[in-house]
């Protein structure tokens, strides 16, 4: 069994390779920090989906230091960028919310196709390994075969699941699941919700209703609301995070599909603008392919040779 750090490294190898190589490319062979170099660095960050504004900010910090002669060696640039990114991510960190008494209720939300159901399957596996008792709630009653998909994950991870038929009211399923979670004394209830675009007001209102239903049964719930974000997502990710936070009260992010070549740099912009911590990263389709996100390790792995 490879260690967590190994898996993390392996998982984000591609990400690392992309960003680091290009930063290295940019730095390598340049003796002085000139305008061209800075411009290339900006493109490097933009190519990682960090976003124009964040990239400009980072570069502005560097420009100022260069102007004040604090940076003479181009290789120091990497250090600076690393520190900046780490600072942004660390500023948004916060401890997980623990309920006074179980169950802890975790709602998982996101746009269509971001990987909610798969992530929940992996999450169930993870929590069980940590000694928790988990109950799943199939509140995606909209998409064809979404319930069946979650059921397969429930079987794989030997987790109980509360479900109704397709088309039933998701709030009703949650209501049942909350009572079942209390009666069965599980430690965590994970609620799978239907994928929805953040621009659909009626569907976002449905999320608010699900929250209200939850509060009625367990007043301090949901304890965590995680937004699942596809690492390939570009600048629209920020707007997604904003809208889901407004309607569903997002408390953290899960970044999926980091085993591809996408960088997921948009989380830096999200952390910066909305102060949301990143909780987990998804690096594959197997049950074990969900890793805890740790800002320092993530950034270190991004930059270490």
């Amino acid at each position, binding site marked *: 069994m490879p260690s967590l750090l190994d898996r993390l490294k392996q998982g984000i190898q*591609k990400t690392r390779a992309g960003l680091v190589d290009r930063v290295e490319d940019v730095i390598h062979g340049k003796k002085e920090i000139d305008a061209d170099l800075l411009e290339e660095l900006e*493109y490097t960050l*933009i*190519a*990682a*989906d960090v*976003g*124009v504004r964040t990239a400009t900010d980072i570069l502005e910090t560097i420009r100022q230091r260069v102007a004040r002669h604090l940076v003479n060696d181009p290789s120091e640039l990497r250090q600076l960028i690393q520190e900046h990114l780490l600072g942004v991510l660390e500023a948004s960190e916060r401890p997980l919310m623990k309920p006074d008494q179980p169950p802890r209720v975790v709602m998982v939300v996101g*746009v*269509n*196709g*971001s*990987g909610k159901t*798969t992530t929940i399957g992996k999450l169930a596996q993870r929590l069980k390994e940590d000694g928790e008792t988990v109950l799943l709630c199939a509140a995606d009653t*909209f*998409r*064809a*075969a*979404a319930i*069946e*998909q979650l*059921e*397969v*994950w429930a079987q794989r991870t030997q987790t109980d699941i509360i479900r109704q038929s*397709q088309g039933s009211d998701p709030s009703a399923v949650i209501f049942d699941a909350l009572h079942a979670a209390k009666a069965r004394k599980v430690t965590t209830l994970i609620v799978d919700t239907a994928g929805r*675009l*953040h*621009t*659909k*007001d*009626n569907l976002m209102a449905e999320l608010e209703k699900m929250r209200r239903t939850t509060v009625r049964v367990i007043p301090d719930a949901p304890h965590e609301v995680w937004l699942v974000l*596809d*690492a*390939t*997502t*570009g*600048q*629209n*990710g920020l*707007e*997604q995070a904003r809208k889901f936070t407004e309607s569903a009260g997002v408390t953290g992010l899960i970044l999926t*599909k980091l*085993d*591809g*070549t*996408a*960088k997921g*740099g*948009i989380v830096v912009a999200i952390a910066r603008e909305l102060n949301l911590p990143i909780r987990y990263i998804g690096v594959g*389709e197997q049950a074990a392919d969900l890793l805890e996100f740790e800002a320092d390790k993530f950034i270190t792995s991004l930059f270490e040779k």
Partner: protein
Amino acid sequence: MFDTLSDKLQRVFKNLRGEGKLTAENMEAALKEIRVALLEADVHFKVVKTFIENVKQKALGQEVLTAFSPAQQVTKIVKDEMITMLGTHTSRLRTANMPPTVVMIVGLQGSGKTTSTGKLARYLSKNGHRPIVVSVDVYRPAARKQLSVVANEIGIPVYEGLPEETKPAELARGAKREAQQAGRDMILVDTAGRLHIDDDLMTELSQLKDQLQPTEILFVADAMTGQDAVKSAAEFHSRLGITGVILTKMDGDARGGAALSIRQITGQPLKFVGTGEKFDALEAFHPDRVASRILGMGDVLGFIEKMEENIDRKSAEEMQRKLITDDFTLEDFRDQLKQLRKLGPLESLLGMMPQVGMLKELKNVKVDEKEITRVVAIVDSMTPRERANHMLINGSRRRRIAKGSGTSVQEVNSLLKQYGQTRKMMKSVSGGLLGGKKGKFKLPFQMPF
């Protein structure tokens, strides 16, 4: 949230009046804005460079025509260039000489392949084809079940496969046999989502291609994709030779810059655009509309088309006359709202509007379908005289109307206010339409409300 590119260019060129030419100097600030706008729209940075270069070439040395402001002129160059780069023709699906035509649907996980397969099947059957669908996704839990549910919902036959057919190649073979026996002329093959760097699965796809000899291989791309779009699209193209692209989730507010990147990197046409959760929400690709979207200019054409489909022309003309002659009563207001509701979800409609001037405010107006029902109820609770002349409606009448419609006085008040604003806005719009000086806005179409 974002200022539109047109707004930004307007600002940039504010100080340019009087200069006769677009020069390298005065273009620089404009090009910077264009660059930021494209990057914010997720166009790949290399494509942005090419784009900016092209625009520069075309703009430099152009006389600033008196009829246009420099901002308008640059906007036009930018838009034209965008349309050119997106591909100037609307593409159709090709069919095989010998039916059945095989269409493979490929893409990354979660891009929307299965939903698009359902939509495409429906689109084809509406256009005289007899498609059958098959899912060869043997990996994701319940993926095949998902396509079956979708197919049943839209009334398209689905090849479910025999118990012993557990591999993609076997399922595909079975579907082909079934299509021939049942006289279906098109087979849509929904494949499993995969990462472009997953060598085993990419090999599986190219073997499937060799076996099926598809006429079309459509790459499904999420409109929200960022800079990575070029990598995945390029890899799918080099391994399979895709023949077209379906751009999904365009009903969100992503600007869809990935479309331009993918088009540039593969050279293959965008064919369809997915615009909603329902199975008829698939449209043929129109470069001009997507261009406006990427540039944040709104989709006026799409808007007009929707209007024309749903609005009774005669009553629209009548309304136009009323607006101009100031006869726009509360009754008309109600009828307009009713017509508006026929257009479908209002958010998607407002999303198409260009975000300029006062219409920008309009975009932020939350239109709740229930709200319309309430408004209609309120107007229905008025007497004919009140509807004809809203000035009559005093405090006691307001209370009566609120009671009659089951609403509150506040709601009646806000409706009257809304009506007043609409009147005011429509007057200025129609003024523009008449070519008069009093209107601030020029719109190339008639407002039906």
